[in-house]
């Protein structure tokens, strides 16, 4: 599945972006199947805007985004739901867990939203790997940000996907936990032959990126 961007530019940031060059904004660019893409950008240059645009959480932009030649703006509710269930998974910067559900229920929800990709025992394996087994029965709202972030990562990996969108996915994790999480993500992407788009503030070597872009 190819993601194509055709001269997209967020309307609220239009003037600001037109003045400076970018590898992504206002260009024609394709993200090809299986590519591991790192997008680096300083604060306030639209990392989250880009991720939300690709995921169709916002549509206030000019230009055209398409998944496999299907224009995102023309994608209907049901198609979009199917895309999010089968092809696109996401780790939000603001995590977005259901505060009233337990950590396990948060993960489980994304597992059973479609035909499950994994057995639910896989939740325990991943949680053990990332060191969050002990908080699975806790309400997500009571977990620390670091714990919530790992839960959000496990949640994203619980579903089938061809593209994984990650918006500063390790912002609340120490270097050790980051490495563990990164290797789990790499393993899962390799298994699916999936690509990812990861945005972050700085250079890093958590993955063997196939492409570096500056926003």
């Amino acid at each position, binding site marked *: 599945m190819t993601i194509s961007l055709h001269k997209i530019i967020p309307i609220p940031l239009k003037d600001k972006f037109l003045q400076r060059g970018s590898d992504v904004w206002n260009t024609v660019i394709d993200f090809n199947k299986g590519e591991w893409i790192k997008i680096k950008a300083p604060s306030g240059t639209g990392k989250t805007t880009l991720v939300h645009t690709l995921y169709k959480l916002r549509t206030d932009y000019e230009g055209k985004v398409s998944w496999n030649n299907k224009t995102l703006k023309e994608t209907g509710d*049901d198609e979009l739901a199917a895309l999010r269930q089968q092809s696109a998974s996401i780790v939000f910067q603001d995590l977005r867990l259901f505060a009233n559900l337990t950590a396990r*229920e948060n993960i489980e929800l994304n597992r059973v939203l479609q035909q499950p990709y994994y057995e639910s025992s896989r939740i325990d394996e991943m949680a053990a790997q990332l060191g969050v087994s002990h908080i699975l029965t806790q309400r997500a709202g009571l977990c620390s940000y670091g714990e919530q972030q790992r839960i959000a990562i496990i949640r994203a990996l619980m579903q089938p996907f061809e593209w994984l969108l990650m918006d500063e996915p390790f912002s609340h994790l120490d270097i050790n936990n980051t490495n563990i999480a990164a290797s789990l993500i790499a393993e899962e992407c390799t298994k699916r032959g999936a690509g990812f788009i990861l945005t972050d503030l700085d250079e890093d070597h958590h993955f063997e990126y196939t492409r570096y872009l500056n926003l």
Partner: protein
Amino acid sequence: MLNQLLKKLIRSSTGRSRFILAIVGLSVALLLILAAVQIQANYNDLLNNKTNQDSVANFLVINKAVTSSNVGATTLSQADIDDLKKQPFTDAAGVLTPSHFKVSAQGASDRIPFYTDLFFESVPDEFLDVNNKDWKWGDQSTFIPMIIPNMFLDMYNFGFATSQNLPQLSQELVMNLPIQINIKTALGNVNYYGKVVGFSDRISSVLVPQSFMDWANNKYGDQADKAKPSRVVIRTKDAGNPQLTEYLRSHGLTTDADKTRFSKYRQIVTGVVNVSWVTGAVMMLFALLIFTLFIQLTIASCKEEIALLVTLGTAPKQLQRFLMKQFFPSNVVIVLVVLIVISVLQLLLKKILDTQHIYVNGMISVYTIIAAIIILAVLWLVNNYTIRKYIYQQR
């Protein structure tokens, strides 16, 4: 599993009391509306039912009211009769043919001696409430069958006999009494043998078979005064029909007032049923509103959860299906419970009315069930519409 999680996300935020309130409102409204349908159905049943139809109230003997201005001129013209037949409330009309000869009756045996001058009338058999194998007359007949009003016998037994110190007579006795009928002709009396074969509650006259009447009128009748009927019997679905009462009044006709008095009650019943209809409909409207608001509130109170669910890839259709499953079954249960309640009430009503010899169906009517299904369909549509509207709004 998904449904369990959704339930936890969406149910937790709405109050149980509001739900109960919405349910109770809907139940009461439904009960009123369906009860109104059932009452209406029962009412129609009573008017059209075969068992009830044959009762006294549905046959009316109509004649011109005798007033000081029309004494001696109370015959009904053919036009009058035809017009009456044309009226929507008239199912059938039959003319009461009067006899045009003088007739008297006397006891045929010496045991019960009596003598009375008499008259005959006849009416087509379909208007009679007496079934008797003896009710026929032909050239070979050895006696003239007669039907007399029950009232006659009552008057004799309880008024005349007691005051005159005479024996009271049972129906059986009267029917076994040989009666000598004398028809007066210009050449003297012609004697026949007559027999009472039945008692009528419907027509207050001494009735003989139509065939005898035609024959006798022809043979002994005063040709100058060719049969001009002055009384008509009609069969009507509803003697209490206000239209009928109004027609009679405007044409100077009259009938047994006791039977048409029902028309006043009828109007009251119709009024009550209508009020019940309107109240039910208005309540239904409010109940729907409450239920809609409840759905709206439920969705609004967890709009963040819904937004996040959609973000994570829940299809709005999935959510809609889930919410329908949350709300609609309660509606189905309400409708079923209300139908059961009405069935029980109907059964009780039947038991009570049976003791009064008013026969209604013990089962609830098809119309009530159809109405319930229609209301259920409306509820489904309203639920579906509301859920759809607000889910798409929250997105």
